[in-house]
């Protein structure tokens, strides 16, 4: 009996697999070319928020944020999601004006969002240097979840429902007959499938090429670093959009985050000195107490950048049994919602309105999603 093959065992692939299995689908196989937690799902900043600058992003991520809150119960494992609050801090009048416009959008989507004055920000995060802070949005149900806990939970829950998940299994060919995918090849094994899902992170463009389709976007690295552990000093998950910087303190005491620099997109897991210096500069200026801490490690992860930084979710317009969950830049935060809604779309042919703006062919149709509150450097 042929079933569903998912290419990519990151948080997207596992979330789709779990949700498909939960809705009763059988014979689900997840194939991943790398090792468990080796991709962006094990390298990202782990920040989770529901509120963004656009209604499209906010409706999808608000749903995801709510799913995160109950995810431990859903999966039967502890994902360690901690609703410590998410602060988006403005350091420029333009950003402050944007945040002021966002609060009502967030509230309309059921999020517990409030606008904070600089004094209130300082009261919440005493480590911050108040000078230069104009205010912030406080998303009180946002937070963080460590990827080691979340990924292990998704893997364990998927396997418990009978999903086969294999790492070190690169897909080398994708076969199609009459406008439908019929099988994938991994090594010498040919796996017939009725449905194929590409959730291969930065490698989705290459995997798409195996199926003879052009997946919009390109792979690029993003960098992060960890400071040595100290007693709790930062409470919230924090984004500094003006500095293209984000950070939080983990339950292990380390301060993890990064700042983006405008560079020619790099296809490598090597890290670079420019991101290290930019991150350190933002930390030292905005959180002066961090200046004396030592940097433990720096690393890079690869993501799949699209023209509008938004994900590509849904059925491929040219191949009726090919689905995508790709092009993610906030994929860790968005995975519970994407898996939930995409599984329903695949099994029940019921495409939720929250997925429609992120259709795979939106650039072809000239309908990108405009989102102005994400922490990513512009690329040409």
């Amino acid at each position, binding site marked *: 009996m042929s079933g569903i093959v998912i290419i990519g065992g990151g948080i997207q692939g596992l979330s789709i697999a779990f949700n498909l299995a939960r809705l009763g689908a059988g014979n689900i196989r997840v194939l991943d070319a790398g090792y468990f937690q080796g991709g962006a799902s094990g390298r990202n900043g782990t920040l989770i928020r529901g509120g963004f600058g656009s209604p499209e992003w906010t409706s999808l991520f608000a749903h995801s944020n709510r799913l995160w809150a109950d995810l431990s119960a859903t999966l039967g494992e502890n994902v360690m999601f901690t609703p410590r609050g998410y602060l988006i801090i403005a350091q420029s009048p333009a950003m402050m004006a944007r945040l002021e416009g966002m609060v009502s959008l967030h509230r309309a989507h059921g999020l517990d969002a409030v606008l904070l004055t600089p004094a209130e920000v300082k009261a919440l995060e005493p480590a911050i240097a108040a000078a230069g802070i104009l205010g912030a949005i406080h998303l009180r149900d946002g937070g963080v979840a460590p990827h080691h806990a979340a990924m292990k939970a998704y893997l364990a829950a998927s396997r418990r429902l009978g999903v086969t998940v294999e790492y070190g299994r690169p897909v080398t060919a994708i076969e199609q007959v009459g406008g439908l995918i019929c099988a994938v090849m991994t090594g010498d094994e040919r796996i017939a499938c009725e449905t194929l899902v590409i959730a291969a992170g930065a490698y989705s463009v290459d995997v798409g090429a195996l199926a003879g389709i052009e997946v919009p976007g390109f792979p690029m690295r993003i960098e992060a670093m960890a400071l040595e552990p100290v007693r*709790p000093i930062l409470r919230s998950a924090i984004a500094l959009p003006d500095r293209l910087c984000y950070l939080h303190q983990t339950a292990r005491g380390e301060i993890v985050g990064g700042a983006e620099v405008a560079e020619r997109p790099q296809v490598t897991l090597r890290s670079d000195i420019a991101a290290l210096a930019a991150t350190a500069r933002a930390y030292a200026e905005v959180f002066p107490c961090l200046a004396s801490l030592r940097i433990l490690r720096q690393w890079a992860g690869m993501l799949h950048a699209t023209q509008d930084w938004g994900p590509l979710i849904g059925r491929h317009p040219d191949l009726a049994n090919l689905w995508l969950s790709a092009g993610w830049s906030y994929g860790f935060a968005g995975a519970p919602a994407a898996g939930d809604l995409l599984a329903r779309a695949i099994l029940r042919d019921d495409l939720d309105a929250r997925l429609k703006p992120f259709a795979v062919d939106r650039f072809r149709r000239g309908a990108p999603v405009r989102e102005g509150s994400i922490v990513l450097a512009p690329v040409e």
Partner: protein
Amino acid sequence: MALHRAGERALSCTRKRHRPLGLSGSFIQGVMARVDGVPNVRLDQCQARPGMVAERQNSWPSPRADLLKLFRLVPARWVRGGFEHTRLFPSGTRRFLWWERLLAFLAGEGRLDPAPPPSAIQPGRHHACDLLVVGGGPAGIAAANHAAKTGRTVVLATRGERLARGATAMGEIVTPIDPSVTVLTSHEVGALYRGGTLAVAAPHDDGPATVIACAQLTLATGKRSLPPLVPGNALPGVMDATTALALAARGSKALGPTLVVGTDARDRVATRLRAQGVDLVDCRPVAELKAVRGSKGVTGADCNGERIACASIVHAGPWRTDPNLAFQAGSAGELRLAAGEPAAQVTLAGFAAAPDEAVHWSGIADEATDICPCMDVTAAEIADLVRGGITHVEELKRQSACGMGPCQGFPCWELMNAVRAGVGGPHLAADRPSHRGPRRALTVAQAAGLSDVVEPLR
């Protein structure tokens, strides 16, 4: 060093179970303390001065009456990697929030002042040279001198406060450095970028960091002796030969009755220690050492069924090269950052270039044998993971947190691999997780000063 000489052997403790750690030369956690209000300062890298306040960190309510020591009663098995996402405290419940708070408090080592006195970001420096030599021992000096004589511009960076510390401690005659070589002492080179053509060095104090652009890179970082893989191997009093020689040079009494274990070169170390007046009780092959005895520090050793009373155990082998910088210079990959062939301009020199010695492991996966004591990872935990089917080094690292502490993977990944190959069989070739920079070599303030020094890749 001064504290150890004064009889304070347990300077710090492990992260989860608060077992005592001291000056070992291997495990950095053992020398971290809060000095003059700054957490996580390496005691072996700061000069003692009058009025300096060094506090034991990771203690509560106070360093003197430390109730966290009760965690020593927690069985190692309960706090293995992943214990923190126990199903007893699932997220989404109120008890998880308390659990997470407790975890964060316990994991954070030192206390940071949220409003420190303002400190200016020190602008970074930039050096361009034909050759960068990392390591100030005889091999590093020879490589630097050789290049300088042919008219090339040379920078030599060493973590030592002066050149050839180790060789001097061994009583060797050292060649002076060519005066045209730019020497950066007390500088740690922690990160290499762009295939080893950009290095970042920073002083141990809070002076400015330096970016060194180099056409060629020579790593003359020597080898380090790995702790024996036996029960009790992280007790205060177990130390590597380099540390023992440095202590002995400052006064022979600090070590007490001393047992030397090691590989072929152990007799040279033993002879030198004896010449410096150390009370040497015996010198044995490391494979004969079966266990280290003691609770708060070393009191003896079991060697092939024989009990030897001693206060210090000095290991002189197996000797291995720290692979971190060579890995950073040569590694590449998209799915995984793996060791590649170092670029042509990167060479190893001296002892660092010699073959590594094998790590001896008895095959007994004991909870008292430490792999990564800073993170409380034991041989039993690694062995059980491998037996359970987790053999990929990256997964072992992520599952156990081995090497995620202050050393960032050396020597603990060497020990982890010895157990991995010992349990899983010889087919598990020497493979290692990605070594990353800058592994504590620079502070946020020092790194911030580099933002105007280097251009992003455009």
